[in-house]
């Protein structure tokens, strides 16, 4: 009797809602620093602000212990050039990473300077970052002195950078030793210790609360941010947070183009809880966003997990040779020592394989040849990289229990087997986010952003380091500012919006709304992008807003949460299209191709387009591609007081 239906069958009635219902009731929380989003960046922001002795409140939709855009684990600590085994200068590595157009040079500089300190602090808290049990002695990249496990990723090749497929020579590494900037970690230990450290430092954690809006001084758009509202998704209680500084860390939006409300495996790889809430809150409050037009390729979600899905040259298959159905080696990179960390096949190699399949040269399906690997490397990939990487931990467990033996069996890869199907749809929005300055402050006073909430998001250690940094800066701001009075009118407006769906018991439910939004994006904002289709999309989304949203209904606090998430997505979709309209050019690095403006990256368009609302109207602006200036100098000028690894009291 574990499913709802079996319960119903046995008891003859549905179970009562298990939590007290408190719709419309208010709880007020007064805090110095408010952190919205309890993933990696949010936990680090809260910890770092609390270390400054301030009151900190942390709001999280799920439970902080395992929630977050990155999932419950972490496989690689990337871009850690300050680690003692690295052979490159952190600032030079940061500069190299920031050579990618439309990246976030500020976040990257912070990551490269501070993420190794951050990692050492994780160890203080109880996170596992070294091979302390000597399980991988003899594995390539294992340093016997420190017991760090260096990953082959980026050791010579950095194939994320299109023009750097060949080995890059760094001034700080003239002999081309291995770069050693990525560390293999036991990431499944991280989230629980972060939550524990938050509690130890007295952070007030509000789990199962979705923040719904930012409160601004006098309740006006563009005003200083002085708090936020939220709703508990188990009780329906309304939360009013008053704060001196607020940090947004809710990541981007992961399911605007593709949603299966049943079977998460047909969705985007991002957790379904990533619905752009923070970005939309910031947008409504009047903050600037940028790179919202950036598009990528959809990657199908867990189950096979995105990496298992593409199946080659990535974490899951680190060092694993890829073979065809007859055991013939495929020319795919394996992100291993042998190809010096190359992660992604060049388009030429992909085409060669595609043609090879058609000519019968390569037989489908392809396999990861785990048995061909040396035992210690196989163990490192299977148990450590896969076993500790976010949602793959459970996949490993299931395979092991089902009888799979990596020493004996080939693991099927899903690359190419579906041809050009759904995963090839363009997706956008995940590369976009909130514009920040060198304090990770947004364009609104009192509001900061961290992790994948910022424009041009990166990975786990980026979220950790930028969260930690934003917490520091927000605390400094909170110290010197007084509290402001919240606008009751603004609170009441938001309350009316939040509770509208529970006033109805029929109409349009969240699943239908979500699928409706996704369909608009699939039709009008897909591979064939052009101004007239953008306008059609905006018209339809407006119609949904005017006709379907007033019919939205939610029968309990959980369904209210999903409904509010859809409303975030509905706004988020419109922001994406507005940003796309504003860029009247195509761009390769943004993977953004317009039929009406086909020229790729014309020099006059090599710039960031910023977008915000002013008095309810969309306003665009622009910034130079490296608006952050000299990364090393800017960082150093603002962080003279940085004290390195925290001395735990």
């Amino acid at each position, binding site marked *: 009797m574990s499913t709802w239906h079996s319960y119903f069958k046995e008891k003859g009635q549905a179970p009562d809602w298990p939590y007290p219902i408190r719709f419309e009731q208010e709880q007020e929380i007064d805090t110095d620093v408010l952190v919205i989003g309890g993933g990696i960046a949010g936990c680090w922001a809260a910890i770092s602000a609390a270390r400054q002795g301030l009151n900190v409140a942390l709001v999280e939709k799920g439970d902080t212990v395992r929630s977050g855009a990155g999932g419950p684990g972490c496989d690689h600590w990337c871009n850690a050039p300050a680690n003692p085994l690295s052979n490159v200068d952190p600032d030079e590595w940061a500069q190299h990473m920031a050579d990618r157009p439309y990246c976030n040079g500020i976040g990257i500089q912070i990551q490269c300077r501070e993420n190794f300190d951050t990692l050492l602090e994780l160890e203080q808290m109880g996170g596992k970052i070294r091979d302390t049990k000597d399980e991988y002695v003899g594995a390539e990249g294992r340093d016997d002195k420190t017991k760090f496990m260096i990953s082959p990723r980026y050791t010579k090749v950095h194939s994320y950078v299109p023009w750097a497929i060949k080995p890059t020579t760094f001034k700080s590494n003239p002999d081309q030793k291995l770069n050693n900037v990525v560390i293999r970690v036991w990431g499944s230990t991280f989230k629980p210790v972060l939550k524990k450290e938050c509690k130890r430092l007295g952070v007030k954690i509000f789990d199962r609360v979705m923040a719904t809006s930012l409160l601004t001084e006098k309740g006006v758009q563009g005003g200083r941010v002085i708090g936020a509202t939220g709703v508990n998704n188990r009780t329906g209680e309304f939360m009013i947070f008053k704060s001196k500084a607020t940090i947004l860390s809710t990541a981007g939006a992961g399911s605007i183009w593709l949603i299966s409300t049943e079977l998460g495996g047909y969705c985007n790889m991002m*957790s379904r809880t990533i619905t752009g809430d923070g970005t939309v809150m910031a947008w409504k409050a009047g903050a600037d966003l940028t790179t919202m037009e950036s598009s990528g390729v959809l990657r199908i979600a867990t189950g096979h997990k995105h990496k298992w899905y593409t199946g080659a040259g990535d974490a899951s298959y680190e060092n694993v040779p890829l073979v065809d159905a007859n055991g013939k080696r495929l020319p795919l990179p394996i992100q291993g020592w042998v190809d010096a960390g190359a992660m992604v096949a060049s388009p030429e190699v992909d085409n060669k394989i595609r043609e090879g399949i058609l000519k019968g040269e390569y037989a489908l399906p392809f396999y990861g040849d785990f048995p061909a690997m040396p035992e210690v490397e196989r163990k490192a990939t299977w148990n450590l990289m896969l076993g500790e990487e976010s949602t793959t931990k459970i996949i490993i467990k299931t395979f092991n229990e089902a009888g*799979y033996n990596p020493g004996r069996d080939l693991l099927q890869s899903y690359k190419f087997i579906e041809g050009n199907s759904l995963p090839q749809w363009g997706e956008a929005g995940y590369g976009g986010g909130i514009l920040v300055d060198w304090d990770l402050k947004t364009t609104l006073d009192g509001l900061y952003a961290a992790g994948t909430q910022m424009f041009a998001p990166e990975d786990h250690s980026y979220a950790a380091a930028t969260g930690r940094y934003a917490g520091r800066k927000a605390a400094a701001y909170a110290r010197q500012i007084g509290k402001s009075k919240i606008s009751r009118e603004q609170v009441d407006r938001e309350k009316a919006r939040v509770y509208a769906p529970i006033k109805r018991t029929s109409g349009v439910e969240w699943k239908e709304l979500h699928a409706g939004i996704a369909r608009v994006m699939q039709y009008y904002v897909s591979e064939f992008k052009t101004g007239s289709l953008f306008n059609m999309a905006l018209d339809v989304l407006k119609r949904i807003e005017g006709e379907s949203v007033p019919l939205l209904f939610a029968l309990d606090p959980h369904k209210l949460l999903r409904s509010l998430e859809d409303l975030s997505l509905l706004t988020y979709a419109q922001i994406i299209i507005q940003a796309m309209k504003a860029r009247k050019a195509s761009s390769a690095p943004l993977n953004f191709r317009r039929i009406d403006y086909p020229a790729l990256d014309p020099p006059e368009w090599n710039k960031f387009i910023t977008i915000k609302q002013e008095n309810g109207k969309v306003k665009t602006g622009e910034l130079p591609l490296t608006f952050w200036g000299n990364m090393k100098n800017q960082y150093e000028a603002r962080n003279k007081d940085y004290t390195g690894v925290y001395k735990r009291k």
Partner: protein
Amino acid sequence: MTQKKISAVPNVATPSAPVIFNPDICDGCNTCVEVCQIDVFMPNPEKGKPPIILHPDECWYGGCCVNDCPRPGAIKFNWPLQQRGYWKNKATGEVHQI
């Protein structure tokens, strides 16, 4: 066996049971209810009993419910058919699926 009473209920969501509880091992501690970022489960109204899978269709297969369970074997992943991975014995060529 014909059932005595048939109620009219809506379709069962897919998957209907992303996990399977073993009621002999599960002591209803509700750790899985708390670690799930989606809120797939609810505590059983009867204390000590396995949680009820209330939102199976929203499962993201994050796996925390199983990974963090303090009583091994109390909860097991039950991958939906469309998400069961394949492997092949290298020596015999025999293909298996989860």
